[in-house]
């Protein structure tokens, strides 16, 4: 888990616990040289940033699991990214991803790449489980990664979606997104490993809003449907949820949409946070690193506050965490929504 606030899951958790954020003003990062607040990994070289981030993520993986795991024919790698190497290789944005993975992790099976906007990470975990259920693999490693680039920053700037102060998901004074960069990976296995913390995947799904390619649905339709379907697949009653790790980008319309979907599902009282205040919005990495952070919260029995949230800023009441809260959360929901009208969700149990 490589983010601006840590190089390992443990480092990241400690940093989040102490309220540290990766978001800070980056001089001249805007199209007109504005100093946008971004969540930038400071010690990463500027040239070939994406490649450097992917290499570092791979080397963390090798440290944690050893080379052998990746060389097994029973192992599959799934990569989730929105723009991959758009800065250095705009003519074939995913080619360096393949070559770096092949060189460093030397897998037997061709990696699967998912590029489905901001729900890519959650879809990668759902797809990992699909492959495991198919019996061909015993381990699937889902890697989520996106790096900062002019392309992405200028793009969100052109949409007037960037916040001039660090983003404040669900808050009354939220003004937009803080873009971030990160790499992270989750191992999805048939069997619960004894040597490390793990959670059980109960169910997941996706659903399209069928409404607009960039504007969130006014009724939260796709998110509503996806959460219902995930609960059905998980065989649980949503009322039993202990915690929600929401998407919460910090834009007016996205956060409002999420609050409407949660309200329609009667989830108003369930403790909830958005981790974008710690990491920024890391696009294709978001689903993966936020799930990792959620698992860390479950392991440490501590639900982390939603940074930047002070006052209810959505039309529907939801229970956004203002303080770190001790909790034995057992049943947890993770959601994501993105451009193209996509929504995805996962239900986990400790």
């Amino acid at each position, binding site marked *: 888990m490589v983010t601006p606030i840590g190089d390992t899951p443990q480092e990241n958790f400690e940093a989040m616990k102490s309220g540290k954020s990766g978001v800070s003003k980056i001089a001249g990062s805007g199209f007109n040289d504005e100093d946008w607040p971004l969540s930038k990994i400071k010690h990463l070289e500027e040239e070939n940033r994406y490649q450097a981030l992917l290499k570092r993520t791979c080397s963390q993986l090798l440290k944690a699991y050893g080379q052998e795991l990746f060389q097994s024919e029973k192992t599959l790698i799934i990569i989730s990214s929105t723009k991959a190497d758009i800065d250095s290789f705009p*003519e074939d944005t995913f080619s360096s991803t393949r070559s770096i993975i092949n060189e460093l992790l030397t897998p037997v099976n061709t990696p699967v790449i*998912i590029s489905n906007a901001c729900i890519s990470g959650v879809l990668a975990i759902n797809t990992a489980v699909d492959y495991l259920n198919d019996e061909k693999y015993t381990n699937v490693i889902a890697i989520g990664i996106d790096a900062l680039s002019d392309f992405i920053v200028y793009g969100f700037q052109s949409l007037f979606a960037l916040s001039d102060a660090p983003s404040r998901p669900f808050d009354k004074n939220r003004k937009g997104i803080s873009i971030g960069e990160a790499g992270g990976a989750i191992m999805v296995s048939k069997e619960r490993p004894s040597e490390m913390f793990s959670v059980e995947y109960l169910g997941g799904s996706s659903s*399209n809003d069928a409404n607009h390619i960039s504007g969130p649905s006014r009724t939260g339709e796709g998110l509503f449907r996806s959460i219902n379907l995930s609960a059905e697949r998980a065989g649980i009653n949503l009322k039993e949820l202990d915690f929600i790790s929401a998407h919460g980008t910090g834009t007016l319309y996205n956060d409002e949409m999420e609050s409407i979907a949660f309200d329609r599902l009667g989830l108003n009282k369930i403790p909830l946070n958005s981790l974008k205040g710690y990491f920024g919005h890391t696009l294709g990495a978001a689903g993966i690193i936020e799930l990792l952070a959620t698992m860390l919260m479950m392991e440490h029995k501590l639900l982390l506050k939603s940074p930047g949230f002070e006052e209810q800023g959505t039309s529907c009441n939801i229970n956004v965490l203002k303080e770190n809260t001790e909790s034995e959360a057992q049943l947890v929901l993770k959601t994501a929504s993105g451009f193209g009208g996509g929504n995805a969700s996962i239900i986990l149990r400790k």
Partner: protein
Amino acid sequence: MRILGTCKIAESGVFVNGLARQFEVNEDWKKDLYASLNIEYPKFYKMDALAKMAFLGVELLESSCNFDDYSENEIALIFANRYSSYDTDQRFIESYTEKGSPGPSLFVYTLPNILTGELAIRKKWYGENIFFINEKFDAQFFIDQINFYFRKGSKACLCGWVDSANNQEECFLFLVENSIDEISIEELIKSYKQ
């Protein structure tokens, strides 16, 4: 599983269920094909090449496939290509390097899955969506994915390989229904190679 229809559009022509349509694939082919189908959907003009191709492919498939047989949640959209949103990426880069300011609608289309969003909007499909980046069209890969989505409860899968890069455009769509039949990979590859 059973293939209910295929549609291939490439330089070689337009084929629906293997049959060539009277149509010349020239530089303006997407606009011409749209005009020939007599559809009223002004949003079409705003779409990028990928979304336009997928849109036209679905309209052509409708001549033999009745999408209304499935409810709004039952069709999964499984798409893939090699070059992601290459064409629009280039145009977006051009907007801020040469034209003076980054173009917001171009930026939105710099994600390949926008095309599944456009199809969902057009058809009011709320089902599952996923977009993969593969080195080449891989029939077995699609069949694996289709099996996953049938196992999860989708009744039909609309699959597509839609790519546009380096002056090459291709669009191959096929609709698959859940049934006990087995589909032949060779048949699928043959339809793709048309």
